C-alpha cells in the first residue's frame, strides 16, 4: 500500500458533478480514464467512489438533495463500480493455490448495497473468488447458496443498526452451515461492538482491512454460539408483536402535535413520518443487542435529519414518550428509552421529559403548543 496515488481534488469534484447530474456516461468515462492512466482499481473504488457516495448520503441527510437525486446518484455510482470491476477483471493475478470462495450478502431489509458491492470488488481484486448476492438477502437464499457453492466465508453487510436482528439471523445461518462469518458496515456500531454481540467470527472496519485480516489468519470452522441470554425475558418478541400498534400510536400522537406532518402536500412530511416510523424497529434492535446506543445512534441521526427539514426536534422526545407509555411493562426496554431521553436532554434536545408526559392532564392542543414554543429554539430551517 505504499506510494498510493491519492485522488486529486479536482477529479473528485468532477466525479461529484457527474453524480449530481446522474450522468452515468460521464462518471464512467472519468473512472475508466483514471484506470487507464494507471490508477489502481482498488483506489478508484475506495478513494473516489466510496467517499463520493458518503458525501451523497450526507447531502441527502442535510436535505440539500432530494431522495430522487440521492437515488439517481447512487445508481450511477453502482454502474461505475460495475464498469471499473469489469475493466479491472483482466488484471487479477491469481496465485497458485485455488482462490478462497467468499459470498457477500446484505442483510434482510438492508438496501444500501453499494458499500458491500465495493467491498466485494476489493476482495475480488485481491484474488478471492467472490459471489455477490445483493440487497435484502433472506436466510433461505443464503443457505441454498452455501449448500450449492460451499463458500469458505460469508461476508455480511449491515448499514443500519435497526437491521441487527436480521443480521444475527444470517450470521447464525452461515455459521450453522459451517461457514465462518465476517461482518462490516456502520450497522454494527462503533468499532463493530454489536458484531461480537451477535456472534460474528470477524468484524472489519473497511474492505482493505478485511482482506489483510484474512491474509493473516483464516477463521476456524465455527463452534456453536451461545444464545443471547437477555432475550429470555421475551421483551424483544413482545415489541415485534406490537409493531403495527406502536406505529399506529406513534403516528396518531405525532400528528396530534404536528398536524402539518399529515399534509401530503408538505415537502418533507412523508419523509419525516417515514423516518419516525423506524423508531419501533430501532427500539426492538436496541433490545435485541441490549444496548441503548442503538437508540441514541438513531436519535443523533434523527436530530440532524429533522433539523435539516425544519421539523422541531422535540418530536423525537414526544415519539419516545409515546413508546414509553406503550412499553411500560418491559423493564429493559424502559431503561433504553430512558437512556434515549437522557441523551436528548444532554445534547439540549430534551424538551419533552417523561414527567411532563405522565403529569400533564392538558389536551393535545395545549401540549402541542408548549412543545412548539420550546422546540422552536434549536430548530432551524434548512438552506
Amino acid at each position, binding site marked *: 500500500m505504499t506510494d498510493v*496515488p*491519492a*485522488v*486529486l481534488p*479536482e*477529479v473528485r469534484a*468532477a466525479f461529484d*458533478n*457527474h453524480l449530481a*447530474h*446522474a*450522468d*452515468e*456516461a*460521464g462518471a464512467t*468515462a*472519468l473512472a475508466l*480514464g*483514471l484506470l487507464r*492512466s*494507471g*490508477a489502481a482499481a482498488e*483506489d478508484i473504488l475506495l478513494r473516489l467512489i466510496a467517499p463520493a457516495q458518503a458525501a451523497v448520503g450526507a447531502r441527502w441527510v442535510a436535505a440539500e438533495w*432530494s*431522495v*430522487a*437525486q440521492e*437515488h*439517481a446518484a*447512487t*445508481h*450511477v455510482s453502482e*454502474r461505475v463500480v460495475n464498469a471499473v470491476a469489469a475493466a479491472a477483471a483482466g488484471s487479477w493475478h491469481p496465485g497458485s493455490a485455488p482462490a478462497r470462495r467468499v459470498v457477500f450478502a446484505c442483510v*434482510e*431489509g438492508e*438496501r444500501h448495497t453499494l458499500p458491500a458491492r465495493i467491498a466485494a470488488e476489493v476482495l475480488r481484486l485481491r484474488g478471492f473468488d467472490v459471489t455477490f448476492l445483493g440487497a*435484502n438477502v*433472506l436466510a*433461505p*437464499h443464503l443457505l*441454498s447458496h*452455501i*449448500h*450449492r*457453492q*460451499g463458500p469458505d466465508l460469508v461476508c455480511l453487510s449491515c448499514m443500519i443498526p435497526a437491521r441487527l436482528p436480521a443480521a444475527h439471523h444470517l450470521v447464525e445461518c452461515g455459521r*450453522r*452451515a*459451517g*461457514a465462518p462469518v465476517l461482518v462490516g458496515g456502520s450497522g454494527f456500531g462503533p468499532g463493530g461492538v454489536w458484531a461480537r454481540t451477535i456472534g460474528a467470527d470477524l468484524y472489519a472496519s473497511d474492505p482493505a482491512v478485511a482482506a489483510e485480516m484474512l491474509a493473516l489468519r*483464516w477463521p476456524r*470452522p465455527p463452534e*456453536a454460539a451461545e444464545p443471547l441470554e437477555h432475550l429470555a425475558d421475551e421483551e424483544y418478541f413482545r415489541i415485534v408483536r406490537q409493531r*403495527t400498534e406502536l*406505529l*399506529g400510536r406513534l*403516528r396518531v400522537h405525532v400528528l396530534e402535535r404536528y398536524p402539518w406532518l399529515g399534509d401530503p402536500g408538505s415537502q418533507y412530511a412523508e419523509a419525516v413520518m*417515514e423516518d419516525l*416510523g423506524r423508531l419501533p424497529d430501532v427500539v426492538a434492535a436496541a433490545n435485541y443487542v441490549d444496548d441503548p446506543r442503538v437508540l441514541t445512534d438513531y436519535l443523533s441521526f434523527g436530530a440532524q435529519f429533522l433539523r435539516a427539514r425544519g421539523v422541531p426536534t422535540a418530536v423525537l422526545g414526544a415519539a419516545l414518550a409515546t413508546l414509553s407509555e406503550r412499553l411500560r411493562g418491559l423493564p429493559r426496554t424502559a431503561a433504553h428509552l430512558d437512556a434515549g431521553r437522557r441523551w436528548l436532554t444532554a445534547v439540549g434536545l430534551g424538551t419533552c421529559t417523561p414527567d411532563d408526559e405522565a403529569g400533564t392532564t392538558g389536551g393535545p392542543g395545549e401540549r402541542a403548543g408548549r412543545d412548539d414554543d420550546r422546540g422552536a429554539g434549536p430548530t432551524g430551517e434548512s438552506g
Partner: protein
Amino acid sequence: MTDTRARRPASDGGGQAPRRPGRKLLDALLDLVDQAVVVCDASGVVLWCNGPAAVCFPGLRPGITADPAAAGPLGQAVVASAAAFDAEFLGRRLTGRRNSVRDCSVWLVSDDTEVRRCGAELRAERLRTAFLSEAGRRLGASLHHGRTARSVVELAVPALADAALLVLPPRGGHADWHRCAAPGVAAESGALPASTLERVPQLVRALSDLSPRLAACRPGDLEGLGGATPPDPGPGGESLVTALPGGGGSAGALVLFRAAGTGERPVADSAVVSEFAYRAGTALSAAALYAQQAHTAAVLQAGLDPAPLPEVPGVRLGAAYRPAPEALGFGGDFYEVESEQDGGGGVRFSLGDVCGKGAEAAVLTGHVRQSLRTLALVETRPLRVLDVLNRSLLEADSGRFASLVVGAARPAGRGALDVVLAGGGHPPPLVLRRGGAVEAVDVGGMLVGALPGAEFGQAAVRLARDELILLYSDGVTEARGGPAGAEEYGAERLAHDLAGCAGMPAGAVAERIELRVADWLAGRAHDDIAVLALQSSPPSRLSPGASDALGPPR
C-alpha cells in the same frame, strides 16, 4: 476416629473393661475395613496391619521394616517421612495418608484401581460422545459435497489419526481426494487418475464395500497414489483403510495414518471409527445427491431468470425483479427486452405475470417467453402475436393464464421515444412526464390463455426526452403492508412515488419503485414483483474527453 481406634488396644491391655472387644475381635473388625491399615513405630517397623494391607503389600508383616523393597510406595513414603503417597504398585493404584497417633504412624491406604479405571473410562466415553456429536454437527451442517469431504478429513485429525486421506468414488476416469496432513492444517484436495487406485487393493475394496471394515495397509502400499499420499507414518506406524458407506453404495474410502508412539487415542477405537465412517458416508452421499438436484434446478432456473438488459443506443432501460421469497428464486413474473434487429435502434419488450407462483408458474413463463420470441420472427403485429399466444396457451391446457404487456420502443428524433403497447388483463403502464405528472396508459384487453377468442387492446405513447414509461406486475400494487400491515400499496401510491422519480435514470427508477414496495412490505410475504422502465437516453452532459483531460491521479 483413628484416635479412638488407636486408643482401644491400650485400654484393652489395661483389662479394666471386660466387655470391650478383645484383640482378636479388633483384628477381625479391622479386616472388614476397605482400606489397608498399617501401623509403624517411629523407626518404620511395622507394628500391626490388617487383611487388606496384606493384599496390597504382600511382603508386609508385623516386625519387618516398611521399606521400599517390602512395601513399595508405602515404604518410600515411610523412608522419606512423607505424609501421603499416590502410586501404582503391583498392578494396583494405591493412595495412602499418614496419621500420627502418639509416636506411631498409622497409614490408611486405599486401593483406587477400580475408581480410577471407571473415571478413565468415563472420560474416554465422554470424549467419544463429544467427538461423534461434533462430527454429526459438522457433517450435518453443510450439504455442499466438497465442504463435507473437507469436514470428514479435518474431523479425523487428530481424533482418529495423525493424517487422513479421503478418496471419493472415481467418476469420469478420475477420483477426487481430500487430505488433512496434520492437526490444525487446512484440508487440501486434488484428483488422481482412476487407474492408480487399482494399485491399492484395500482402496478398491473400500470403494465398493457397504460396511466400514478397518483394513491395514502395508508400508509402501499407498505410494502408488502419488501426490495424494500424506507423509509416511514412519516405522511402527500404521495405515488403515475403511469404507464410508453411503445411501446407495460406498461414498468414499478413508485412509487413517497413525505414527508410532503418538500416545493413546481414547476416541479411536474401532467402534467409534465405524460409527464415524457411517456418519461421514451418509453425509457425503446426501451431499452428492443434493449437488445433482441443485445443479438441475440451477440450470433450469438460469433459463427462466430474466436475461440481463441489452445496451441499446438511444434507449435507457431499468428493471427490478423480486420473486416471492418462499419460491427460492422461481417466479411467475417475467420481463424481457431485446434490441430490434432491423437496425432502427429500438427495442422490443414484454412484461407479464403468469397466475400462481413458484416452479409451476415459472415453467409457464418459460413457455410464454419462448413463444413470444418465436412469434417475433414471423409476426410484427402485436395483436396478432397475442392472439396466437392465446391459442397456444389454451392448447397446452395447463389451466393457467397470464396477464401481459408487449410492445416496442423506437427513437423518434430529438430525444423522443415512440412506444407502442399491446396487452391483455395487465395493470396499466404508467408514463412519467417531465415535471412529474403521471399518466396511466389504458391498454385494456382480456387475460391471455383464459378464453378462446379473447380480445386484446393496444395503445401508443410518445415520450419526450427524460420522460419514462413504467411497466409493472400486480405484485407491486397488491403488496400488502404499510403502517396497518394489511393495506395494499395500490395504484395511487405507485403513481405518487413514481412522480417523485422525475429526472432519475430508468435503472434508478426501477430500483426506487422496488425499494418503495419493499419498505411498504416491511418483510411481509408477497407475490412476485417485476418492474421494467424505459426512457430515451440523452448523451453525457459533459463532453466525453472532459474527464480524461483531468489527467492521471497524483
